[in-house]
């Protein structure tokens, strides 16, 4: 594994600890997709908005081009899985039938609002299911690298990119720390192994309670 992959897996493994069955979990594209590897609870069921409850890993030789997740990556189906159409799938999401959504983001504000679909100055070209998941999932967990490629904090006082929802996420997990969002404020609840609070402070623009 590359350093980057190790970091992503560290974050995904920590996110997996938040999941306990029975629960219905929707995993976004990127780091969230890795979370299922670390789940060994048969009562955690994965939902993908393109129309499947019961997403499972798939072996290379069993790949079916017509069985994919929301990132269009090949997946398998678990025992007891079901397929449904896009309107039904988003009815589940908006209707409050998804317990946890785990999402990647571009930015988080210190009020817990996120931006993960558009960058100012670029064409607004894609939103997918992000806004639906934000308004519909009972709990939203963000998994993200703490800083961008330039080393600049992605946890900001305020999102500078267009927000995805006025709903605050519930938890933020990075390679440095875990935050809860309580009454629109960030609260650091855990440092990742070997990370100091000084390092988190230095790499976080947002104010947070500790």
């Amino acid at each position: 594994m590359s350093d980057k992959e190790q970091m992503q897996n560290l974050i995904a493994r920590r996110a997996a600890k938040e999941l306990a069955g029975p629960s219905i979990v929707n995993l976004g594209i990127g780091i969230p997709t890795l979370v299922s590897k670390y789940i060994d609870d048969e009562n955690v069921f994965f939902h993908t908005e393109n129309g499947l409850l019961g997403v499972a890993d798939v072996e290379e030789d069993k790949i079916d081009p017509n069985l994919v997740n929301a990132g269009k990556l090949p997946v398998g189906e678990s025992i007891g899985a079901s397929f449904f159409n896009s309107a039904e799938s988003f009815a589940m999401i908006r209707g409050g039938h998804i317990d946890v959504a785990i999402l990647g983001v571009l930015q988080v504000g210190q009020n817990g609002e996120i931006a993960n679909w558009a960058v100012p100055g670029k064409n607004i070209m894609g939103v997918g299911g992000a806004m639906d998941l934000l308004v519909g999932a009972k709990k939203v967990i963000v998994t993200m690298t703490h800083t961008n490629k330039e080393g600049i904090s992605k946890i900001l006082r305020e999102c500078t990119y267009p927000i995805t929802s006025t709903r605050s996420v519930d938890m933020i997990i990075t390679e440095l720390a875990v935050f809860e969002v309580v009454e629109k404020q960030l609260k650091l609840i855990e440092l990742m192994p070997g990370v100091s609070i000084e390092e988190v402070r230095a790499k976080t623009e947002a104010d947070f309670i500790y």
Partner: protein
Amino acid sequence: MTKVHQDIEAALSCVKNGHTLMVGGFGLIGAPLTLIDGLTKKDVAGLTVISNNLGEKGKGLGILLSQKKIKKAIGSYFTSNREVGEFYQRGDIDLELLPQGTLAESMRAGGAGIGGYYTKTSVGTDLAKGKEEREINGVTYIFEPAIRANVALIRAWKADTLGNLVYYKTARNFNPVMATAADVVIVEVDEIVEPGELPPEEIVTPHLFVDGIIKATKILTKEGVIDYE
């Protein structure tokens, strides 16, 4: 009476200049690749295409885009085809971006005789700008109007000759919804069977939604789209 077309030109004769088309699929998965291929060979222009995305560059609906047959696209994720951005920059295409759930729900409303509806999705974001807000039981929603099309081009797994449809795994996606929301619905399928072969409780799209059926000749495989006889 048969709804089964033998050639693609006949199946697509319902598509006219300036039409609004719904095209099924999530990327290439569940997309009516045979019908899209037929459109690339048909002399038609000024189309509005309602589809989750516009394929990839040079694939699926992406070809239609390159041919400048699409004047407007309504979808949720155009990012998968970078050529869409280039067209948009040059003013060669109009885009209407909707959250994926809103896209699906608006089509469902269009097919169900619902004029419009209130959704929480996108409230307070740039995608809600200019849209009417309404509070219902203390929650803020925005109004979204129903969407319909002149023609829906969809893909299913099996059709009986009456037009009853079942779908394969995640190739289902938008197809059953689009089948309800267009004046004319043409489906391509992997297999055509006799009435009675699809059990009544398992039919996903009842035949009253379907106007034309054609056997698929373009198939999505692990290695990409191939021709199938």
